[in-house]
């Protein structure tokens, strides 16, 4: 077994490259510090939008969204205004375990793999997994997980009751996950082992502000959580064989929110979006005078006649509308500080390629630091502050670590999430 070149992939959802560097320097993550000198730790770019569904889909397929067809946790069903939550079955490209089905896999808590499918090995889907029964393969593995109180995610509703209660749940979920993955590590003769720690993303979303407030009662908890992650990095490093390939990654970075920016409200106020009145507003309220609308987080879709029931925008209209929208978004500024909000307006053809392009948003926006771009419908004001959500994704601050002295040559200068599978192949010597 010692000669076998196994692959170990460790995901740390939402862990920012910059923060890991800080934690290495300050001694919060000693095991990562040790590894840093034995391999290559790089800043990595997430795809746009920098959202876990898109990013993990790129990681598991090695493809850009124009190929795998996932552009967010939500999307609109073609020819309707019905919003849906795509899932693993929506991915239009092969994952690494589908490409090499004969290898033996253990994949625990990889986001966006619900509903779980047959695999040669063991799999537990990560978030969003509404039904535990459809998240575990093989079925018999479910009993074991239930006995160990395995939970896919901490109950985020608890945060609205008590921050401490939510933190306790976050630590407990992590602890139970560790117990499960450590047990199965030894029990299965696997070729590829993938474990994703997702509590870091939750921690960021709800507690990112405490990093700037050392006096906060939750500051130590934040650091403690990363210490727990580092313990697992240490355990995995100890367990790995010399021949094993070890890679670690996050799907995006995280930063503190200054304000939430409701782009649909901005479009409404500027005459690009018109919604009929009703008690509950959703995309079905879009009227035929609408030129564009936004899906979470900052995906701009034109209301095409060929794609939507109330669409009136033609191919010929596209260019002028896109130019108008670009100007409009570049003009958007935050009244409290006069800062401009939009750093980049990106056309889909600039960043995507592949046969899923027709489903891609026409424009994607990248914000300046601290502005969380949102596609919420029905908000009266463009700007809002959340009492609960304190952290937002940062696409250009994900990380990638590749272990080994030969890693430097395998990792491109500015790695992207879809480069991970090609890097694995290089490391395997293929």
């Amino acid at each position, binding site marked *: 077994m010692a000669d076998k070149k196994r692959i170990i992939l460790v995901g740390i959802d939402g862990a920012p490259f910059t923060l890991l560097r800080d934690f290495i320097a300050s001694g919060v993550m000693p095991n990562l510090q040790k590894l840093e000198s034995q391999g290559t730790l790089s800043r990595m770019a997430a795809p746009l939008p920098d959202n876990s569904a898109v990013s993990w889909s790129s990681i598991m397929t090695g493809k850009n969204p124009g190929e795998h067809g996932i552009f967010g946790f939500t999307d609109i069903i073609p*020819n*309707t205004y019905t919003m849906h939550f795509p*899932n693993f079955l929506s991915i239009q490209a092969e994952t690494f375990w589908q490409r090499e089905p004969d290898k033996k896999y253990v994949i625990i808590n990889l986001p966006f793999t619900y509903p779980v499918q047959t695999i040669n090995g063991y799999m537990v889907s990560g978030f969003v997994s509404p039904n535990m029964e459809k998240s575990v393969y093989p079925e018999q593995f479910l009993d074991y997980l239930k006995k160990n109180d395995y939970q896919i995610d901490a109950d985020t509703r608890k945060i609205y009751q008590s921050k401490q209660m939510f933190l306790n749940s976050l630590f407990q979920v992590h602890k139970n996950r560790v117990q499960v993955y450590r047990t199965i590590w030894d029990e299965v003769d696997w070729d590829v082992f993938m474990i994703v720690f997702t509590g870091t993303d939750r921690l960021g979303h709800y507690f990112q502000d405490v990093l700037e407030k050392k006096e906060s009662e939750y500051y130590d908890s934040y650091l403690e959580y990363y210490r727990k992650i580092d313990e697992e990095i240490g355990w995995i490093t100890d367990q790995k064989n010399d021949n094993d390939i070890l890679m670690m990654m996050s799907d995006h970075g995280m930063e503190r929110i200054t304000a939430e920016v409701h782009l649909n409200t901005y479009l409404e106020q500027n005459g690009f979006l018109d919604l009929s009145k009703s008690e509950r507003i959703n995309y079905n309220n879009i009227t035929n005078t609408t030129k564009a609308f936004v899906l979470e987080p900052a995906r701009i879709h034109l209301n095409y006649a060929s794609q939507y*029931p109330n669409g009136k925008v033609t191919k010929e209209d596209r260019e002028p509308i896109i130019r108008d929208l670009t100007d409009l978004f570049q003009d958007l500024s935050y009244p409290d500080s006069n800062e401009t909000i939009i750093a980049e307006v990106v056309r889909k053809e600039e960043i995507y390629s592949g046969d899923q392009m027709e489903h891609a948003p026409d424009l994607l926006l990248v914000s300046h630091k601290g502005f969380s771009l949102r596609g919420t419908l029905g908000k009266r004001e463009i700007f809002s502050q959340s009492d609960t959500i304190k952290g937002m994704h940062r696409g250009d601050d994900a990380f990638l670590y590749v272990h080994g002295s030969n890693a430097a040559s395998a990792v491109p200068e500015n790695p992207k999430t879809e480069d991970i599978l090609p890097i694995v192949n290089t490391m395997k010597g293929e």
Partner: protein
Amino acid sequence: MKPHNAEKTCWNCPAALFKGNVDFRACGQSQEEIKAKLGEEGQIMIECARRPELGYFEPTITFEQCTEWEKGEYGYQLKDMRVMILGMDGYLGWALALKLAKLGFRVSGIDNYTRRDTVMEKGAHTIVPIEKMTDRLHAAQDVLGLHINFRRMDIRERDKLGPFLEEEKPEAIVHYGEIPSAPYSMVDVDHALAVQDNNTLGTLGLLWLIKDIVPETSLIKLGTMGEYGAPLTGRPLFEGMFPSDAILKWRGKEWSLGGEITPRDPVSFYHVSKVQDTFNVYEACKYWWLRSYDIQQGVIYGVHTDETAADPRLRTRFDIDEWFGTVVNRFVAQAIMGIPLSIYGAGEQIKGFIALEDAMECMVRLIVSPPEPGQYDVVNQVSGLYKLNDAAETIASVANEKYNLDTKIQRVSNPRVETEIHPFETVSRKLPNEFKFKQRVSLEKEIDRIFKLLTQPHIKKRIAEKAHTILPKTHWTGEKKDADIIETYKPGSKTYGEYQGILDLE
């Protein structure tokens, strides 16, 4: 004009998986629980059995928008929609099986051949010859290229029906699997028990199977206009439930009756079984969020559908005996045999009628436009109201003028206990308005088709063989005797009572 079901949404679609996604128990009980079940955006999310790649989504896709629904002759039609017909060997079941299969539905069905047995018990036979089921299925394949998945079983054999439902996972179930005869249920205690056992208990068992195996399916169940009786006040026969503006006034106070089941006044133990079904189905929809259309069908008549007429081996059965022959069908057979058309009692009974071909079209329209979860709805499936005297006059005049027969009419003592002279107003608004059904076949047209078929020598011979089974012998008193002849007369020679049926279609 858009098809009638274009604006229906996932709420009506049997492929939408609500179970496990929507906690119906919360509805109307705990607002907090509903809120907790709703997502961040306050929307109910479901999955689609046919399009699992959509993941979770709001149930707001219209049939017009959905790629699984395609425009067809009778509205949007769910691609390869799986429909199971219970009682597929019967007069209606076979005709519907062929029609649905021809339209592209995936049809399955069961039957225990009770109808063949009970008609034989009477010493009668279907006067339009029919093949045994195996040969019917071969003929459907050979002549029309249709595949139908049939199993022989009784609806009460739940150990067989359950697995068949699991296998087929029908998206609609048409329930024709009941014994449809008032006189048969009045023969004696054993017959009464047999009818209620098969009908009421069979249907109750079916409801439990649906709950456990196919809760998303729509149950399209055959009831009868006879459930309502004929109220002497002339109160309209609403479609199962009172409309919201129906008011009960008593001692100076008023209450809306809207949504309540209207009174039933069945006229035989068979009709009682249908009334019991009504309540069982209604309750199942309430307890388990099943969905059902209860079809209060008028008296059915006729021989023609395009599919059954395509080949003699594809014909559906046609009974004329006192137990199973419906009145128009029986009258035509009597006319051909030179037997006076026999009217029970005063002949002033007014009833709703519908031709076979029209009834089949109604069923297709209902199948493609399912109710929402928890919705129990009733449609009065009638296309015309006729007084029995008038129906006899019409048939006699076609017989005499077009077929040179010398048909007479006779009144016999009424073996039944029923109101013989009454006003009659029926509401039948849903089929023409919500489902855009338009009557295609007039009474005269279908009578003519029946005459054409029944005057063929080999069929005429079969009528002659069983003509003795036409006149009633089964009395509601329990007696078995010939009915007394009250009078015999020539058509056109009598003046009838003043009541005329009122059919409210608007």
